[in-house]
């Protein structure tokens, strides 16, 4: 047995866990910080400066954000590959959610890589500052803005629906009714996060 096969269970559970902790938590923090854009440039810039001034910020970024995303993304692509989707034949709500979870996985990955390049890596390389003004300029291109809207909705769906799957994969939501109730709750989380993210996006271009 290869090391991979031997630790199969651990690796799969780690993939599931990383989606919520730390990646999901980071998404919540990120959307909340962005929402300060609604209060204007000063408020947003202050929050960005605060985050940039955190101690060990580079280590936090590498170990709590980048590495978990790389692991979750690479292993996730394998999970996407292994499925043979059949939504047209089995036209059920849960089957569609399963399919969309895989579609949004790929969309989110592409979006995150682009977003990371545009607003984090390029700023690290060329020393450009991330401010309300620079983000607003980035989003002033309608194509990029549209891509951000799609990327945002893909990530909030992937997180909310992934949270539902997480609750089942860890044996927390077991019964039919419990799974249903958590389905509504995570659906509600998807709506709230999407509205929150869209508001912030529009605040930058208003």
């Amino acid at each position, binding site marked *: 047995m290869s090391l991979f*096969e031997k630790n*199969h*269970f*651990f690796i*799969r*559970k780690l993939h599931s866990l990383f989606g919520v902790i730390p990646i999901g938590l980071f998404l919540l923090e990120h959307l909340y910080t962005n929402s300060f854009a609604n209060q204007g440039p000063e408020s947003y810039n202050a929050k960005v400066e605060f985050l940039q001034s955190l101690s060990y910020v580079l280590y936090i970024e590498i170990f709590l954000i980048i590495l978990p995303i790389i692991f979750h993304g690479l292993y996730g692509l394998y*999970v996407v*590959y*292994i*499925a*043979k*989707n*059949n939504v047209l*034949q*089995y036209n*059920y709500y*849960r*089957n569609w*959610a*399963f*399919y969309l*979870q895989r579609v949004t996985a790929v969309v989110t990955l592409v979006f995150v890589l682009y977003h990371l390049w545009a607003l984090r890596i390029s700023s690290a390389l060329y020393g450009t500052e991330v401010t309300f003004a620079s983000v607003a300029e980035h989003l002033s291109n309608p194509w990029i803005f549209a891509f951000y809207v799609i990327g945002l909705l893909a990530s909030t769906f992937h997180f909310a629906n992934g949270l*539902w*799957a997480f609750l*089942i*994969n*860890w*044996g*927390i*939501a*077991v*019964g*039919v009714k419990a*799974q249903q109730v958590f389905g509504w709750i995570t659906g509600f989380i998807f709506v709230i996060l999407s509205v929150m993210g869209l508001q912030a996006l529009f605040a930058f271009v208003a």
Partner: protein
Amino acid sequence: MTREYIHLKIKRQDNPDSAPYWEEFKVPYKPNMNVVSVLMEIRKNPVNANGQKTTPVVWECNCLEEVCGACSMRINGVPRQACSALIDKIDKSPIILEPLSKFPVIRDLQIDRQIMFDYLKKVKAWVNVDGSWDLGPGPLFPEKTRQWAYQLSRCMTCGCCLESCPNYNEKSAFIGPQALNQVRLFNAHPIGKMDKEKRLDAIMGPGGITECGNAQNCAKACPKEIPLTVSIADLNKQTVLYGLKRWLYK
């Protein structure tokens, strides 16, 4: 629906390696037929819709009351049993019959379901009662457990859950919902419980419980209405707790 003829479109295959082809049949209508009795009519008079003599369509059936699983096939795209598919309740015409797509075809609608029994062996879906001396009477099933365990025990290994599962395919090693459901059943059994960890070990590797992606088609496809997704979620709990224990006691 009453009609003059029952129009059938059947996906046929002469042997395991040959290419499939379609053949249509028109069987005189009689009330109260099911798909099995229509196939029997074709066997009596193997003539296709064009009036040409052909080979009778091969299929498998046994109990004729939806408890054995042998006559599973896709009827208008839906995996189900031919015996409980009543012609008068099918509105579509032609009625399309295809073999299950996730199993090797032997001939026409007959498929090889052996792999499901191999999965049951893999997960040790049985109770160990043999000893070299009299072990005495076993512990009783608590009534509360028995009620839901009985529901799980109604599985007839028909293959509908595997057929509808998007993660059960040639790319994946997944053993599928039916064998997992049996793990939950035997782990709840008062004697079966004694080998609980062996069964959990068997489903924690590649192809096991983690391959489930919660599309939940299985529970919808199951003709016996077994709560397969609850069984899987419960096994998720069992494997997580056991996985932690296995690691911390190492």
